[in-house]
């Protein structure tokens, strides 16, 4: 079973008796999600647009004074350390534990700890999101595909950077084969754990013909959305930038081997400059 554009969904319904979203419905859902995501980007205290530093906690990070690892104006000397997998912040006011994956107010700054225990990463956010508001290509029903997920050629996990630049243990989930630009393109899919309970996302990190010419040079992420009965929705309208596009505080994920689409995909989030350009000679994983 190969992948089909959104308008072929009616046929899928007949064959499998499931009710996946049509291209138009998928676009409506994508619109809603896009609005929420843009609101989060432009207003949340942990928006990547507000990020000013991200560092592995390692042996400890000094924050505050001008000569520290993370200079923060108006902040006395503090030290973030990791012990037994827990990250705490020590300063003149005492010691406090920093929860993983949640924003914590720190004067006029916000702190957030990510990453697995032993490899914790601290991100520091400024007072408010700065930089340009994110921009998107117009929603396009032709960028919506439906099809099955083929099993991975080899099972197992691989360490990759998630969209927020934090290293995670991702499971090889398989691949999808999509007709784009007159060619069948096989795209690797991985399951990226999220912070909450049993939840995770099927993610694709891909490059395409628009990178550096309309979209972020290092590539973009897009989630593969399960539709039931073994079918999945790949909607490039939902393609989004890695957080390194919003702030140079974040490291950029290395492109995933094989996930390069020659054709331009003019759907999803665009890139307006700022942040980092794709470093030369990235190692594919």
């Amino acid at each position: 079973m190969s992948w089909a554009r959104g308008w072929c969904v009616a046929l899928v319904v007949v064959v499998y008796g499931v009710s996946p979203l049509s291209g138009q419905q998928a676009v409506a859902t994508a619109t809603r999600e896009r609005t929420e995501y843009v609101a989060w980007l432009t207003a949340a205290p942990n928006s990547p647009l507000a990020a000013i530093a991200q560092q592995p906690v390692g042996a400890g990070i000094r924050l505050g004074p001008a000569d520290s690892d993370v200079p923060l104006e108006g902040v006395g000397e503090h030290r973030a350390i990791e012990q037994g997998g827990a990250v705490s912040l020590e300063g003149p006011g005492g010691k406090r534990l920093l929860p993983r994956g949640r924003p914590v107010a720190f004067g006029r700054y916000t702190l957030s700890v990510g990453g697995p225990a032993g490899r914790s990463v601290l991100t520091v956010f400024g007072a408010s999101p700065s930089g340009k508001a994110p921009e998107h290509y117009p929603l396009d029903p032709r960028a919506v595909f439906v099809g099955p997920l083929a099993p991975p050629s080899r099972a197992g996990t691989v360490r990759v950077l998630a969209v927020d630049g934090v290293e995670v243990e991702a499971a090889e989930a398989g691949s999808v084969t999509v007709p784009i630009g007159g060619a069948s393109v096989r795209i690797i899919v991985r399951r990226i754990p999220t912070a909450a309970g049993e939840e995770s996302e099927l993610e694709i990190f891909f490059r395409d013909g628009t990178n550096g010419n309309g979209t972020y040079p290092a590539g973009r992420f897009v989630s593969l959305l399960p539709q039931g009965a073994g079918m999945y929705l790949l909607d490039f309208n939902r393609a989004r930038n890695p957080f390194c596009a919003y702030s140079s505080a974040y490291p950029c994920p290395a492109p995933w081997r094989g996930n390069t689409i020659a054709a331009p995909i003019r759907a999803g989030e665009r890139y307006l400059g700022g942040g980092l350009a794709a470093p030369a000679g990235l190692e594919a994983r």
Partner: protein
Amino acid sequence: MRCIPLLLAGLLGAISPPTPAGEWKAVLDLAGGELRFGLRMERSGGGWRGELCNGTRCDQLSAVRQQGDSLVLEIADYAATIGVVIRGDSLTGVYRNVGNRGPRVIPLRASRGRWPSVRAPESLVGRWDATYLQDWGTSPRVFQFRNGPAGLEGTVISNTGDYGHFAGQMAGDSFALAHFDGSFVYLLTGVLRGDTLRGVFHAGLRTQTPWIAVRSTGAPHLKPPTEITQADTTAPFRFSFPDLDGKMVSERDSRFRGKVVLVDIFGTWCPTCHDAAPELVRLYRRYHGQGLEIVGLAYEVTGDPEVDRRQVRRYRAKFDIPFPLLLAGINDTEAAAATLPQLRGFTSFPTSIFLGRDGKVRRVHAGFYGPATGAQHERLLRDFEREIERLLLSR
């Protein structure tokens, strides 16, 4: 003249906001299916009060605010909100919770009324040994299904406890049960074919895990909770954390000396802990006179002592908890383990640690089988009582 009252009524109807009062059949539209739950709202003083229901089990919403045709339902325990617009007999909006890689948002809709009560056939009722088929391997679960006052209900049990009360429906050989408490978004869908169940466990908006289940034979399918978390039993168990007034409390305090102590590791964000709390209060009231002390170690969400203290105070008031609750840290298993270095393999909220009169660990129980597990719940309570009675008798 007779037209004037009608005109006034029409005018008032046009300008007064639609009422949210009554029962609502609500749906979270997950990627793989509909998660059904109930909402109830009624007048309270000048405003509204509301409840979120899974079948007949309802929890009060912390606040309901109406502005025109917009309604915001707050679930403060989990820092979540439901924002909807009322249009006549329907609600449309989203359930929203903060995430670290973007907002956690799930579309929500509701219509007036109550979900019908649908009983399950005997061929589905009972205990099933399930296997989750994940990308990286398999993982055991137990499903328990029964018929309750609202029809099909049940729970899902893992190695460390249950996921709370699930309520649902059956149509033909297909069934769907859901649990939504404002934090956990779980939907279990499946099909009964002969003596085998197959289906999908949905978590959050998109995570879908296929599973297969067969009738339980009674042989152990899950790992016993006592095998999951272990502790150093050679030295007295040490803890030292501030209480809700900021006063440090430790195992060396006179109230614990020579007593049997049950240390409850919990979080106000943890639904299973909410199931355990009333039972711990009951155990405390029953055995305190004979020498039982209980102390709750709270691992909270924000890491901000003021905010977390407020949350734990609310929890203490909700369950009328008479024993001390201490602010131990944040709700991260690694962080919690770091504050209690004598524990090994700590993974689960709640975890109950039984200390003998010498202060040494006698037993660690990871997780808690809530009332939704029926017989498992009763068995666990009897087991806890026996353990406490045994420790009270020993010197």
